[in-house]
């Protein structure tokens, strides 16, 4: 408690809102307690999941935060592979956010495993089922989280002044980044492939053989939007000046990719002769239109306008739209648009909410602390270039 208070004191001095900080600590603590209760008492006692709804809020959490964290691999592609040096100032905060995103995906995934004490079974080679996309997903989560640790390691090693270890990891930067990009591509697309098995369960507005491609494209779009979102929020919060031009370029790429996504989505529905479902399915149609309008059409229009791309405000709201659309998409596919096999209804238990909200709070908290104590942001004088 004392240590927390001390750290809090340090933060208050530097100008963070103490109320916000307290709320984050409280939510994270509540999530921790809820998580322990869940692990001890089992899924049936602590969630509203059932045989009708074997998957719920936590799966939505995972399939949302995995593409949210895609900012990390997008920025590492831009800086390390395309060699765009000027993006280096964004790389660390974004990769840190991506790492924390994945870290809490792993935490929530573990919570969601009925037999969590046997999680390591996915790592036993003679148990592997290469036909299973759940297998691919778990491999990718494990390996890519490891890659992200190596990608943020330099910030920690610099702070601890461990020159020897830095010397080992530095020359491998490009290799690590490359492996991360390959794993991410597999991971994002395999999340969509999970649902290829369910043409009779997933509503045809979402089910298509293109699922892996659509999931990957949406992840790339969301990742870049997360870069914009995190950059604007964190540079502002920490009082660092940011060259907006970098984000303007990213927003233009986002608008092009949104166009591609829209064409893929509409083209697929037209080809399948299912375009009529966009209006004929009641609340399911509303859900679909919500996703497409908020997450694709509106940001596509916004980011096509130069004026919007060149203002911090416009950039922020455009990126926020994409992320809201992503949230609707990732709530639909594994839950809302998936036909239940029984008559029950599902609304998450408070423990499910507590774990999800607590994980987000803990993620933000760790981001703020890391940003304070590690060389995450460029030094004020260095970002003038």
């Amino acid at each position, binding site marked *: 408690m004392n240590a927390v208070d001390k750290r809090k004191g340090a933060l208050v001095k530097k100008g963070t809102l103490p109320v916000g900080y307290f709320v984050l600590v409280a939510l994270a603590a509540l999530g921790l307690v809820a998580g322990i209760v869940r692990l001890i008492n089992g899924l049936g006692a602590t969630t509203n999941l059932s045989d009708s709804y074997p998957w719920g809020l936590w799966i939505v959490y995972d399939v949302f935060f995995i593409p949210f964290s895609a900012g990390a691999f997008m920025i590492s592609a831009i800086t390390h592979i395309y060699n765009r040096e000027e993006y280096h100032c964004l790389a660390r905060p974004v990769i840190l956010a991506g790492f924390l995103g994945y870290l809490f995906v792993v935490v929530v995934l573990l919570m969601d495993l009925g*037999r969590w004490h046997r999680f390591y079974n996915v790592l036993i080679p003679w148990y592997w089922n290469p036909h299973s996309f759940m297998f691919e997903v778990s491999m990718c989560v494990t390996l890519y989280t490891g890659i992200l640790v190596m990608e943020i390691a330099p910030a920690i090693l610099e702070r601890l002044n461990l020159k020897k270890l830095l010397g080992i990891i530095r020359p491998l930067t490009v290799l690590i980044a490359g492996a991360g990009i390959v794993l991410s591509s597999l991971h994002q697309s395999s999340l969509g492939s999970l649902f290829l098995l369910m043409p009779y369960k997933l509503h045809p507005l979402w089910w298509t053989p293109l699922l892996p491609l659509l999931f990957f494209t949406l992840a790339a779009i969301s990742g870049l939007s997360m870069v914009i979102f995190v950059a604007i929020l964190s540079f502002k919060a920490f009082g660092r000046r940011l060259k907006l031009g970098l984000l303007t370029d990213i927003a233009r790429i986002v608008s092009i990719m949104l166009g591609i996504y829209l064409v893929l989505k509409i083209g697929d529905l037209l080809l399948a002769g299912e375009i009529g479902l966009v209006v004929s399915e009641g609340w399911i149609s509303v859900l679909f239109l919500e996703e497409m309008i908020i997450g694709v059409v509106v940001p596509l229009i916004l980011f096509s306008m130069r004026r919007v791309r060149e203002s911090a405000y416009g950039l922020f709201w455009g990126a926020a739209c994409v992320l809201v659309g992503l949230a609707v998409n990732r709530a639909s596919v594994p839950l809302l648009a998936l036909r239940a096999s029984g008559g029950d209804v599902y609304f998450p238990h408070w423990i499910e909410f507590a774990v999800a909200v607590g994980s987000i709070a803990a993620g933000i908290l760790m981001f703020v602390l890391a940003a304070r104590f590690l060389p995450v942001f460029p030094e004020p004088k260095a970002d003038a270039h």
Partner: protein
Amino acid sequence: MTIDRRSFLKLSGASLAGAFLGTKQTTPVWAARAHNGVAMLYDATKCIGCRACQNACKEWNGNPPEPDSIGLHDAPRELSADTWTLIQLAKPEGSNEWAFLKRQCMHCLHPACVSACPVSALHQTEYGAVVYEPKRCIGCRYCMVACPFGIPKFEWDEPLPYIRKCTFCIDRLEEGLEPACSEACPVGALTFGKRDSLIAEAEARIRNNPGRYVNHIYGKEELGGTSMLYLSPIPFEKLGLPTLSPEPVTRLSEVVATYGTPSLALSVASFLGGVYYWFTKREKELQAKEAIGQEEREVES
């Protein structure tokens, strides 16, 4: 709509497969499965709804009853971790027809649950029965979500639950016995045997009893075939069984997993390598040019 989707699926499946395979003829991953294991034929016109099968199942597998509020009978409303087979009355609205439906694992020839399981906890035995190996299970519940019939159930009351479902009485099969449910049936509504001979039997029943059956053997072709076969006096969708195409649901997923995943990994890796090489080379050239320019300027001055 279904046909559109199916033809679209075939088209995309074919183009995907074409892209990955080229012109090479390969045995498809979904083809190497037993097609003449054991099976069971349920004749809904013979079933009297006595639920002897249900009780025999519970007795053999040691599953507790799920009584209703009065507590008189075992009265489960749905399949569950403790109820692996269930007789349900199908009485379509606005019609005088009715029939009983026996539900349990269909023991698909191309089981989605087996394809889905990340740790191979579910597998198909040589008999055709789809069975579960508890110690491997991590409780991800992908099998429950993937099954088109909603069969695998979870022990929600347990702190560390297992998946539970009909095993086709694999332990009895191994001892040369037939499953408990078909053995218990007093009216011959359940017949156990080899899959091809049961299909022949079902076809004969349809042929010899005009008007008694809908002219369709459910499970013969659905999803590439199931080990449970059904005959019904009323259309199967009214009986409560989903309308499914002969295309196994595992096919697209397994093709993408087998060929798509390595192709994607390789193409992303080589693309990145290419781009990185090109950019690095260009940068070096630029630096070299600059250096030459500088030298020239130095020489001039």
